[in-house]
């Protein structure tokens, strides 16, 4: 079954309509940027300086008070939505693979954004940025996006979220919404990457995916663990006690991600691969306020 079949496209359209109804008044395209410019909405005044365009001088103020003040307007422009998609080999784990759900969710969110005249870009990362889909606007770009996502391979080694975000924020681009789609199984942690986004005035949102077998593995006895991300192996004897410890550590990790995001006002949605992508999108919008 194709990743983005006709059924998927139908559900995208439905999702677009539903999201419009549900999020009326707070759709992606109505977000205002913090840029001052040639908009129509008054923002504030500043002192006139030589060379300023006299068209923006507030003559009413000059007439009443004799002060030369220049009117400033908030510039309205398209919102930039960046999808930071984890394509490290660990995303290929699960049945269905986390990567499949991640791509579907990315496609769905991108479709909603494109439908609302926003600009979207998809950046695939692992230990670094491995591929990207350049900024695009308009629903007519959805097919090329789907093609990009479908062809996106799992590659790279251990997830290096911090390095990848470092590389991302260095790009000379406008800030916007940064939706991170990942399992956040990064040896060096997830905090540095999210902090970089925040500090560079991006508005990060986390969509963390995991497979139920990752949360509750069914291993027992003498096994050789094979890390699909870096190909390393480790011979261990999995006991009931070790399993219990594993479950505790995993739950602590999930809780740490949720707590980190909550404390910093970052939207966070955690889901398993058993969740249908459209339910995931609605839940993400409704609960986490991903596009407030």
């Amino acid at each position, binding site marked *: 079954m194709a990743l983005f079949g006709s059924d998927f496209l139908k559900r995208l359209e439905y999702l677009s309509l539903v999201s419009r109804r549900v999020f009326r008044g707070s759709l992606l395209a109505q977000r205002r940027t913090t840029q001052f410019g040639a908009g129509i909405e008054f923002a504030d005044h500043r002192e006139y300086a030589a060379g300023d365009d006299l068209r923006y001088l507030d003559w009413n103020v000059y007439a009443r008070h004799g002060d030369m003040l220049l009117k400033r307007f908030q510039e309205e422009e398209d919102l930039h939505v960046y999808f930071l998609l984890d394509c490290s080999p660990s995303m290929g*784990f699960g049945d269905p693979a986390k990567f499949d759900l991640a791509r579907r969710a990315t496609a769905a969110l991108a479709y909603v954004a494109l439908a609302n005249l926003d600009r979207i870009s998809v950046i695939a990362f692992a230990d670094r940025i491995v591929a990207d889909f350049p900024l695009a606007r308009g629903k007519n770009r959805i097919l090329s996006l789907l093609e990009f996502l479908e062809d996106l391979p799992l590659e790279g080694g251990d997830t290096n979220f911090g390095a990848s975000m470092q590389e991302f924020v260095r790009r000379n681009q406008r800030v916007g919404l940064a939706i991170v789609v990942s399992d956040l199984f990064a040896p060096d942690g997830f905090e540095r990457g999210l902090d970089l986004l925040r500090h560079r005035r991006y508005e990060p949102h986390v969509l963390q995916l995991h497979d139920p077998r990752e949360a509750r593995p069914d291993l027992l006895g003498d096994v050789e663990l094979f890390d699909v991300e870096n190909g390393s192996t480790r011979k261990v004897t999995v006991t009931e006690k070790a399993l219990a410890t594993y479950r505790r550590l995993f739950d602590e990790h999930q809780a740490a991600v949720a707590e980190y995001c909550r404390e910093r006002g970052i939207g966070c949605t955690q889901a398993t691969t058993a969740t249908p992508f459209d339910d995931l999108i609605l839940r993400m919008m409704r609960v986490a306020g991903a596009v407030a």
Partner: protein
Amino acid sequence: MSFAAPLALLWALLAIPIVVFYVLKIRLRQEPVSTTLFWNRIYDEKSPRSIWRRLRHWVSLLLQILLLAMLVLALASPYFLWEILQPRRIVLVIDDSASMRAEDVEPSRLDLAKQMALAEISGMRFRDEMAVVAAGTQPRVLCGLTGHERTLREAVDQVEPTDGVTAVAEAVELGRRLLADAPHGKIVVLSDGRFQDAEKLAKDEAVDFRTLGTPAGNVALTRFQVRRSLVDPIGYVILAEVANLSDESAERRLEIDLGDSPVDVFPLRLAPGETWSKTIEKVSVDGGHLVARLSGEDALAVDDVASAILPHRRRQRVVLVSEENLFLRMALAANPLVDLERITEPPASYDDDALYVFHRVVPEVALPRQAFFLDPREATDFWTVGGELADPIVVEQDEDSPLMQHVRLDNVVLPKARSLKPTGKAQTLAEAVSGDPLFFAVEERGRTALVLTVNLDEGDLTFRTAFPILVTNALGWFAGESGELQRALACGEVADVQLVDGDANADDGAASRFAVVSPTGAVDLLPNGSTTASLGPLDTCGIWRVVKVPVAEDAAEAGDEKLVEAANAPTAEVVTELAVNLASAQESDLRVPSELTNAGSPTVLSAGFAGWLNRPLWFWLAAMAFGLCVAEWFLYQRRWIG
């Protein structure tokens, strides 16, 4: 060290597949995981134990190899040379006589002896052999020399208490024969020492004498017999003896019952060691089981009851054919068992069950089956009549005949006695100086006749006490009750029993079987066609019965079980009964000789403990293999459950 089965060492080749499979096994299955972040944190925390983790797989293999080695060695049955050179031969002599029933030790002396015997069996070393001999009544080998523990234990379990007397000395002799010339032979005697020469036996170096019991006191019926009175046709005499076999005085009550009727009760107060004995005269036409019971409880119950068989007296129909003789009539009528009729002429026909007494009358035609002729004046088939004897004097009388018991005719004047000549073989009971028989018995062709040639109207015979005694003897003789005493047997005795009376039952011998029923209800069938039997040794106190059981046509299909059931039925025809009592003061005396007293229980414990130490080498190898199994199981569980 050598091996009994060296070929079993080939099983060691199993080590090869074990190692191969183990190496294959430790190639662990690979499990892909999305990240080892969490696993690393878990196992890196346990780094101090990592050396053990790395080694334990090889330790496990080592344990398996060791396990195989233990099992292979156990199968090869290794042994040391000294085991071959020093095997012990032990004969366990267990006293199961009546005194071992005593309950002065828990649960009883015999049970304690059995426990000690089992402990001794547990203490056997590999290659030791043991035999079990029971020493009650007569020694019995319950199990010959064997090293098989289970067989020996079963033999010990077979030992049941008997009521017989101790036969330890004989059992020890039997043990000596079993041991023959075994170099490390030993006889272990488990007894209370209540038999002759116990002290001497205890000093025997080849005998390990282990005494059980305490100096417990006991009051016992040591004698109990009954017999019919010699002078009183319905009287009987009881001889009872009670002994206080303790060091303290005792108060008891002796109750004697005949069937369900009480006969007498004697309150007894016995000093330590005192023996009370009494002869009691009673009367009863009825016979039956005479039972004596001592009230109260003591350590041994079997000697508190004794039985005896009192012969039954049948009434006797006597027809007196006589004109009249007062003395004769009164002598006959005085017997309470006699139903007397008097007629003057001989009857036309005779009743075979009746005794006909002819006084001066002789039937002309035939003689009855039983006839007592007094002063016959005519000849018959049995005798011819001669002349009168003037004053005959009895010069010789048959002292041994029951007809002449307590009868003295030495000085009796017997004028006008007739001279009678028996035509056939006759038993002369009293003879005149002339050689003429004055009193004789004739038995011929199924007829019995007793002839007294004395003229009762003359002389002083009828005035003498000898006359009624003579008449009573004659009545008893005709009644066939010669057995005045049916002796109660001592436990362990052998009794000879007449099963078939002459040739009367020869015809139906094939249609019936004789069986002996013990007081406990156990039945022993006697061989087909037996006319006499030697029963015994009778080692259970109580009433033994010999019964005649009819054999049904389907007996072949039914087997002996039906006969056994019929023998125990109350309707079974009783041929004879035998009373068996302990009647042994030595056996009833439970006081263990002080020279023989030793502690029994510690022996039980030490022998039981020694049993574990004396196991063969293969046992310990197998035990170690089991231990290794447990260790491997522990490692396995530790690996998986943590």
